[in-house]
């Protein structure tokens, strides 16, 4: 099962969180619970480092915090839907959060390819509607991987 980047365990819907820090913490918790991290502190540091270069909001209340990091064990994707939007940057809010974790070493192109394919899907209006509205983690999983 090592090549599965996202499972229903890595999807959490309509969670109440107060701010960006809490969101990143929750993304990390989901990854850790599914044994996808080597070192959570290292991963968190790398995610913030990436946010500092360019914040990862892509508009439409979607944000994609991510890092290629030595703290990551397996290439993974997390989807966290918030109960209400939070301030992601001074200018932008976010409610639909896709966390991406990629190991620093030995990453194979297949995983990078899957992740980039998923990222592209976030621009598709049909898929956007499912990830925003569906009450079913299974349906969301299917939409992301279809």
């Amino acid at each position, binding site marked *: 099962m090592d090549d599965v980047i996202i499972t229903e365990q890595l999807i959490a819907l309509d969670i109440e969180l107060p701010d960006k820090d809490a969101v990143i913490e929750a993304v990390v918790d989901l990854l850790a619970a599914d044994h996808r991290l080597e070192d959570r502190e290292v991963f968190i540091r790398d995610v913030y480092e*990436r946010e500092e*270069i*360019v*914040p*990862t909001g*892509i*508009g439409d209340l979607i944000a*994609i915090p*991510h*890092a*290629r990091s030595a703290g990551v064990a397996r290439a993974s994707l997390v989807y966290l839907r918030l109960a209400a939007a939070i301030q992601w940057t001074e200018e932008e809010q976010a409610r639909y959060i*896709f966390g*991406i974790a*990629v190991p620093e070493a030995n*990453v194979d*192109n297949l995983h*990078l*390819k899957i*992740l*980039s*394919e998923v*990222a*592209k899907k*976030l*621009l598709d209006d049909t898929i956007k509607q499912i990830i925003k509205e569906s009450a079913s983690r299974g349906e969301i999983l299917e939409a992301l991987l279809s």
Partner: protein
Amino acid sequence: MKKLIGVASCPAGIAHTYIAAETLIKFGKQHGYEMKIETNGAGGTENRLTDEDIREAEAVIVAADTRVELERFRGKPVLFVSSTDAIHRGAEVIQMILDGKAEIYNP
């Protein structure tokens, strides 16, 4: 068919490179352009622009936060934006091309 080409890249090369590319393709097509965007991501270069692509293109959009190969675009109209601009303001970026805002690259 008139053609637009470009290059997208972002700091990690995992997600935003591809989202920037898709956004430009979407808005370019809305204006009747044939679109080809090279992506320089963590997994390497995909959709690499050929000499023919560059010759045929009306203009080039460089949506990059990292260094990309530019010498090949010498003499073409090139518009430089960030990957974030391409993602958030894709429609405006294409409009800038239509308005002739791309300047001949001749460093």
